[in-house]
């Protein structure tokens, strides 16, 4: 029964797959016209030399708002799923038992080496600087809020690897990260509505375009990247902290007892 179903599904899938592959345009012969138009207009119109950023934060700015909120909702969902639930005494016992087994099998984590500590600390400054550079130059060169935000979020992760969970929680307190991230997400909508207040369409550019190839140019594209960068960094730090907390919950509780 199961094999029959698999064979039928597989055959249908293979037919559709080959049909789809056969219908692809020949490689290198882009049919257009949107890409061609954007390539020729975007730099002059928006002073953004990175056309991909111009598409994401201006021409397709409304879609990126949706994308930003997919990220927001996923992070909220993961946080909700991993929220602290008081464990029954039963669960506590079995967990302790499994930890004992871990130790006997030699699976207890080794202590952090000096090399990891030194390298981790040295990496933090570089990561923050590189992340900020990525976010603030998204409109001129490849990069932007999404990429820079993830890079920024790895700074607290290096701290966690070099030090411990407590230090991670001290430099990135949950409540502050949640608040800053949510505010940055809301800023996207606020900037969009600012155009409506001024009598234009939602998300139309309202800030000065500035000079090509300079930081802070391209008007809204720069400011939206800044907001998205902070939101993405906040979201990923929050994800890290809920996963770390989930893993270390009990250990931290025992230490504080």
């Amino acid at each position, binding site marked *: 029964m199961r094999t029959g179903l698999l064979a039928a599904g597989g055959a249908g899938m293979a037919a559709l797959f080959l049909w789809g592959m056969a219908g692809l345009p020949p490689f290198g012969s*882009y049919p257009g016209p949107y*890409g061609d138009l954007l390539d020729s207009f975007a730099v002059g119109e928006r002073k953004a030399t990175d056309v991909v950023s111009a598409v*994401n934060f201006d021409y397709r700015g409304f879609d990126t708002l949706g994308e930003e909120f997919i990220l927001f909702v996923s992070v909220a969902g993961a946080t909700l799923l991993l929220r602290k639930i008081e464990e029954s005494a039963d669960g506590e016992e079995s967990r302790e038992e499994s930890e004992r087994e871990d130790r006997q099998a030699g699976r207890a984590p080794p202590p952090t080496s000096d090399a990891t500590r030194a390298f981790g600390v040295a990496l933090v400054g570089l990561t923050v600087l590189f992340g900020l550079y990525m976010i603030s130059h998204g409109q001129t060169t490849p990069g932007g809020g999404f990429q820079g935000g993830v890079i920024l979020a790895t700074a607290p992760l290096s701290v966690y690897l070099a030090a411990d969970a407590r230090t991670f929680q001290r430099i990135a307190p949950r409540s502050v990260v949640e608040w800053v991230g949510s505010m940055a997400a809301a800023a996207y909508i606020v900037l969009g509505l600012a155009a409506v207040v001024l009598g234009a369409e939602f998300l139309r550019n309202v800030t000065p375009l500035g000079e090509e190839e300079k930081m802070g140019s391209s008007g809204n594209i720069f400011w939206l990247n800044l907001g998205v960068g902070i939101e993405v960094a906040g979201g990923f730090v929050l994800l890290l902290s809920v996963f770390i907390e989930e893993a270390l919950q009990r250990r931290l509780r025992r230490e504080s007892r």
Partner: protein
Amino acid sequence: MSPGFLAYAVAAFVFLCGLWGAATSRHLVHLVICVGVLQTSTYVLLLAIGQKAGGVAPVYYGVPHDLLAVDPVVQALMLTDVVVEATVVALLLALAVQAHKHAGTLDPDALPRLKG
């Protein structure tokens, strides 16, 4: 068959690898990673479709603005794809953690059936 066909072949191969892994998976974390691999095939496909023969990256920093560049729209779509994949994987892993907490196993076949 032109060498350009290779890009499509890579996309198809990565897609099938992810699909095969997901279909035969016996571990929830393995399953999540397989779905991630499956989704990466869309990156290759999107970038291949936007390719123009002789085109450069659609970034005009320090180069003449009339240079032939590839389609920026599919690149922007791919960026969206990466972000969505990263967060969806995080959400699925959180679900796997919850499943393990409740059932004590990550084998999909050994998970208890849903009760209404």
